[in-house]
C-alpha cells in the first residue's frame, strides 16, 4: 500500500534540475509549438518577482512609518541625539551602491575580474555599514540610551534593525552574484540575448539600491 | 467510468437539494418567528435605541427578502435544470441584466448608508447641556463608577496614589475637586444610578486592559481604552434595573464582569444620592 503511494508520488516527482537554486531557466524543454515567456527571458521573470518583493518590504516600512507618525504627534515626544557615525554609515552605503554600479559597468564592457572586484568592494562597504550600525547602537548604549528609553529610541532601534536584517540578506545576494560571476566568467560581452551574469547582477543591483534608498528614507525620518 | 449520476440519482439529488433549500427558507422563517418571543434583543430602555432598533429591523427585513429570493431561485434552478439530457444554453452575457443587479443593490446600500450615517452622527453628537455626567471604569474584573459630587467636577487621577481599598480610583488627594467625588463599586456593592428621561453622558476609562461598556437594554456599547477617556451619551426611558456586561476580552475572568445600573425617577435618585453621600 505504501509502495503504491510512493509510486504515485514518483510520478509527481519532486525536484527538477540539480541546480535549481534561485533564478534559472527551465530545463531545456518545452520545445515545439509551446513556449512561455519565461523561456524567452528568465531575467524578466526574476525582475517581476523582485519588484513584488520590494513592494512587500515597502509595505512593512509603510506600516512602521504610520506607527512612527502617530507616535510623533504625542505631547511626550523627546528626540534623542543621534550618533554622528550614522553619517559615515550613510556614506558607506552610498559608496557601496556606486561600486555596485561600477561592477555592472565593467561587466557590460567585458572582464569578469572587474565585476568580481566591484562586487567584493561592494560587499565590504555593505558589511562596514552594518558594523557601523551596530557601533551606533553601542554608542547610544554607552550614553545610557537603549531601545526602551524613549519612543524615539524605540523607533530608531526598530527601523535600523529591520533595515539591517534586510541588508544582511542583500549581502547574501552579493555573495551569490560573486559565486555566479566566478563560475561563468565570460571572456567578453555576449552577443545577442542577455548575458545571464549581467541578468543576475541587474537583479541584485535593484535590491541593493532599494536598500540604500530605504536607508536614506529611514535616516531622514529618524533625524527629522 | 461513471462520473455522472444515473438519471434517478440526478433526480434524487436535485429533489433533495431543492427540498432542503426550501425547508431552509421555512426553517429560517419559523425560527425567526419563534425567536421573536424568546431569543431577541432585550426590551428597549433608551431613546436613541428606538432609532437603532428601527434601523436594525429595516435591515433585517431587507436581508430576509434577499435570503428568501436567492435561496428560492437556487432551489428552483437546481430542480428545473437538473440533467435530463437537455443541452445547456450557451447564453452567458447580458449587460442589462448585470447592470440591473449592480444598480439595485447599490441603491439599497446607498439608502442604508444615508440612514445609518445620520443616526450615527446623532449618536455621537455632543451631549445636551442638562446631561448627568458620570464616569465608569473597567478593570480586571469589575466595573467602578464615580460621580463628580456637588462641585460638578471630577478630581484628577494619578496612578501613583492607587490603593485597592482606600483609593481605588487613584484620586490625587492634592486636588480639591477630588474631595467630593462619589466612588462606587457597581459590580459588587453598588449600582450606577441614572435618572429616567434625563440624558446621561458616561465617560469610560480603563485601569488596565481593554474592556467594553455594554448595556444591552440601552443599545449602548463603547470600549474602555487604557490611556484614553471614551464617552457615550444616551437617555434612559424606563425605570428599573439593568445589566452591564464587558464586551471586550480582558482576561481570565472576563465573563464575570457584570455591573449593575438602576434607572430611577429624579426624586428617587436625589434621595439615593443624599443617602449615599452621608
Amino acid at each position, binding site marked *: 500500500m505504501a509502495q503504491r503511494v510512493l509510486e504515485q508520488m514518483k510520478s509527481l516527482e519532486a525536484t527538477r534540475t540539480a541546480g535549481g537554486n534561485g533564478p534559472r531557466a527551465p530545463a531545456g*524543454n518545452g520545445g*515545439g509549438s509551446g513556449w512561455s515567456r519565461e523561456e524567452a527571458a528568465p531575467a524578466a521573470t526574476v525582475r517581476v518577482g523582485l519588484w513584488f*518583493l520590494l513592494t512587500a518590504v515597502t509595505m512593512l516600512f509603510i506600516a512602521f512609518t504610520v506607527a512612527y507618525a502617530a507616535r510623533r504627534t504625542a505631547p*511626550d515626544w523627546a528626540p534623542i541625539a543621534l550618533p554622528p557615525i550614522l553619517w559615515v554609515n550613510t556614506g558607506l552605503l552610498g559608496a557601496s551602491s556606486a561600486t555596485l554600479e561600477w561592477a555592472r559597468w565593467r561587466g557590460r564592457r567585458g572582464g569578469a575580474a572587474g565585476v568580481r572586484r566591484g562586487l567584493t568592494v561592494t560587499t565590504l562597504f555593505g558589511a562596514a555599514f552594518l558594523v557601523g550600525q551596530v557601533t551606533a547602537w553601542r554608542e547610544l548604549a554607552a550614553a545610557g540610551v537603549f531601545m526602551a528609553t524613549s519612543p524615539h529610541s524605540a523607533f530608531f532601534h526598530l527601523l535600523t534593525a529591520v533595515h539591517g536584517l534586510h541588508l544582511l540578506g542583500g549581502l547574501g545576494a552579493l555573495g551569490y552574484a560573486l559565486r555566479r560571476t566566478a563560475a561563468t566568467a565570460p571572456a567578453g560581452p555576449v552577443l545577442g540575448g542577455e548575458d545571464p551574469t549581467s541578468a543576475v547582477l541587474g537583479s541584485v543591483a535593484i535590491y541593493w539600491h532599494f536598500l540604500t534608498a530605504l536607508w536614506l528614507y529611514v535616516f531622514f525620518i529618524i533625524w527629522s | 467510468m461513471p462520473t455522472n449520476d444515473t438519471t434517478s440519482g440526478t433526480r434524487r439529488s436535485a429533489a433533495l437539494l431543492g427540498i432542503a433549500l426550501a425547508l431552509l427558507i421555512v426553517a429560517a422563517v419559523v425560527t425567526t418567528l419563534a425567536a421573536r418571543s424568546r431569543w431577541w434583543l432585550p426590551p428597549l430602555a433608551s431613546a436613541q435605541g428606538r432609532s437603532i432598533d428601527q434601523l436594525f429591523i429595516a435591515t433585517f427585513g431587507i436581508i430576509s427578502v434577499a435570503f428568501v429570493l436567492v*435561496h428560492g431561485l*437556487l432551489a428552483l434552478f437546481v430542480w428545473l435544470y437538473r440533467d435530463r439530457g437537455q443541452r445547456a444554453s450557451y447564453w452567458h452575457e447580458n449587460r442589462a441584466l448585470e447592470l440591473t443587479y449592480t444598480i439595485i443593490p447599490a441603491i439599497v446600500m446607498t439608502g442604508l448608508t444615508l440612514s445609518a450615517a445620520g443616526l450615527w452622527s446623532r449618536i455621537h453628537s455632543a451631549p445636551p447641556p442638562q446631561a448627568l455626567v458620570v464616569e465608569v471604569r473597567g478593570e480586571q474584573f469589575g466595573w467602578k463608577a464615580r460621580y463628580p459630587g456637588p462641585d460638578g467636577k471630577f478630581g484628577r487621577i494619578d496612578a501613583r496614589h492607587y490603593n485597592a481599598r482606600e483609593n481605588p480610583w487613584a484620586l490625587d488627594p492634592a486636588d480639591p475637586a477630588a474631595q467630593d467625588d462619589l466612588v462606587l463599586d457597581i459590580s459588587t456593592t453598588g449600582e450606577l444610578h441614572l435618572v429616567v428621561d434625563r440624558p446621561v453622558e458616561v465617560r469610560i476609562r480603563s485601569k488596565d*486592559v481593554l474592556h467594553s461598556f455594554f448595556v444591552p437594554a440601552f443599545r449602548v456599547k463603547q470600549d474602555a481604552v487604557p490611556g484614553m477617556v471614551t464617552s457615550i451619551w444616551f437617555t434612559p426611558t424606563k425605570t428599573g434595573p439593568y445589566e452591564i456586561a464587558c464586551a471586550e476580552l480582558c482576561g481570565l475572568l472576563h465573563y464575570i464582569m457584570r455591573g449593575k445600573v438602576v434607572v430611577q425617577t429624579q426624586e428617587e435618585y436625589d434621595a439615593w444620592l443624599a443617602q449615599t453621600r452621608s
Partner: protein
Amino acid sequence: MAHVAPAEAHAGHELSFWRKYIFSQDHKVIGIQYAFTSMFMAVLGGLLAMFIRLQLGWPGRSWPILGNLFPGGMPDGQVSQAFYLAAVTMHGTIMIFFVLTTLLTGGFGNFLIPLMIGARDMAFPFLNMLSYWLYPPAIIVLLASFFVSGGAAGGGWTAYPPLSAVPQAAPGSGLGQTLWLISLALLIVAFLFGSLNYITTVLQLRARGLSMLRLPLTIWGLFVTAILSLLAFPVLLAAAIMLLFDRLGGTSFFVPAGLLVGSVPVDHAGGNPLLWQHLFWFLGHPEVYVLILPPMGMISDILANNARKPIFGYRFMVGSIVAIAFLSFLVWGHHMYTSGMHPLLGTAFMTTTLVIAVPSAIKTFNWLATLWRARIRFTSAMLFALGFLSLFVTGGLTGIVLAQPPVDIYFQDTFFVVAHFHFVMASAAIFASFAGTYYWFPKMFGRMMNERLGKWHFWLTFVGIYATFFPMHYAGFMGMMRRIYSPQIYAHLQGLQPLNVFVSIAAFVLFAAQFIFLYNFFRSLFRGPQAERNPWRATTLEWEAPSPPPHLNWGETLPTVQRWAYDYSPPDMAEDFQPQAAPAAVPTGRSREGRGDGGHAR
C-alpha cells in the same frame, strides 16, 4: 528550438528520497504537502472548537473521562478558564492562518496555478520549497505554546494589547503570547514567499494564447489574492514585531502610561492600543478576502463545469474580484466602530463596507444566472459548490447588518458576529475547499473519490453547519458576548441555555461527519478507482495533463490556448465542451449565438 525530451534532460539526475518527496521543489508535491498539513491542523482546530462547545453547552459540568485525557486543560474534568480562552484563541488562529490560508493559497494555489496556465512549474521553485518549510516550524512553535508555563495565548486571535502586551495581565500573555507572535511571523514570511511566486508565475509563465482575460476564474481568484496577501501581510508582520518589542524589549508602541494591572503599575508610557487594532485589521480584513476570493474563483469553475454552461458574466466576475480586492483595503475600520476611534472614521468605513457588498451581489446573481437553463449534474463537488452559494449568501447578508455602526453598537463582540464570520469563512470557504478537493482529487492523485461517501459527507455537513451556526444569530440577538466562559450569571442571557446545548450537539455531529471525508480521502488515495485524464469533461488546461501529471507537467510541448475557459455546450458542436487547448475549430457556417466578448478564439 531545442527539442529535448524531458526524460533525456534528466538522465543522470536521479534525486534522493529527501529531495524528491520532502524538500521537493515540484509545485505539485509542495501543494500536496500544504494540503496534508492543513488537514492535520484542521482536525486540531476542530478539536479545540469541541472544547469550546463542551463548556458553552454544559458549563460547570464535570467530565471525568476527558479530565483524565486532558489533565492540563480540564483539571477536575472541567474546562478551565485559561484553557477555554486558549482554545478560543488558538481555534481562531489555527483555522484562519494554519488551515484556510495555507490550504487555499498553499495547497490549491501551488497545485493548480502552473497546471491551469500551462506552465511546467512555478517561477521560483526553490523559494516555493522554502515557503512550505517555514510552515511546520511555525506549527511547532505555535503548538509548543500549549505546554509552556501560563499556557497558550488567551487574548483571542486578534491579540489586542494591552492584554497581549503585558505578561501579567493573563496567564496566556506570558511565554504563550510570545510564541504565538513568533509562529505568526514565520508563517507570514511563508505566505509572502508564496505570494511572490504565484504573482510572478501568473504574470510570466502563461502558455501561448493564454491572455489574462482567458484565465479561468480560479486563477483570477488566486492571483488577486496573492497580490492582496503581499500588500497586507507585511503590515501585520510590522505590528507583530512591535508587539514583541513591547513584550520583551520594554518599548511602548501599544501600551499607554498609567496602567495598573492588579495593583502593580505597569512600566510603559505613551503607546496606543488603537494603533495595534488599525495595523491588525489592515491585514485582518484583506485576510478574510484572501479566504473568500480563491473560493469564489474555484466555485465559478466548478459550477460552470457541472452545469455544462459558461460562467455567466465572465468580465463582471473578473471585475468584481478586482473590485473586492481593492475595496478590501478600505474597510478595516468596520471592526473598530466601538473602539474609541473618531466617529467620522466610522462613517467612512461604513460607506466603503456597504459598497463592497455590491460586487459580492453581482457575483451571487451571476452564479445563479449560470444555473439558469443549465444541465446540472450533482457530483459531490457540485453539491458543495451549491452549498457554498447558500452559505456565502447567508453570511454575506448578515454582514450588511454589522456594516452599519449604529446597529453594530449592539452586535459588536456578540455571537451575531461569530455567526456571520462562521458562515462566510468557516462554512463558505470550507465548502469551496471541499468542492475543490472532490473536483481536483483525480488530477492530484490519479484516482477518484467515492461519490456516495461524498454525498453523505455533503448532507451531514450542510445540515450540520446550518444547525451549528444559524442559532448563533439568535444568541447574538440576545446579546451573548464572545469569548465568554459562562454566560450563566447574566439576567439578559437567561433562556439561552437550550440554544447553546442545541448548537453544541450540532457541532459534535458536524465534527464527526468530517471523518467520513477523511476516510473517503485516504481510502481513495490508496484504493480509489483509476481516474481518466479528464473525468469531469472540463475545459481548463490542467485536464490536458495526465492524472496525475508527471514531473514538469506536460510532455514535449506545452499546451497552446485557443479560447477562453468556459466553452461548455457551445452551440455548433456535438460535444458539450471544448477544452481551452483544443485546436481552433473549422467553422461550420452556423452562426454562434449568444456569444459575449469572451467567446471567440483570438
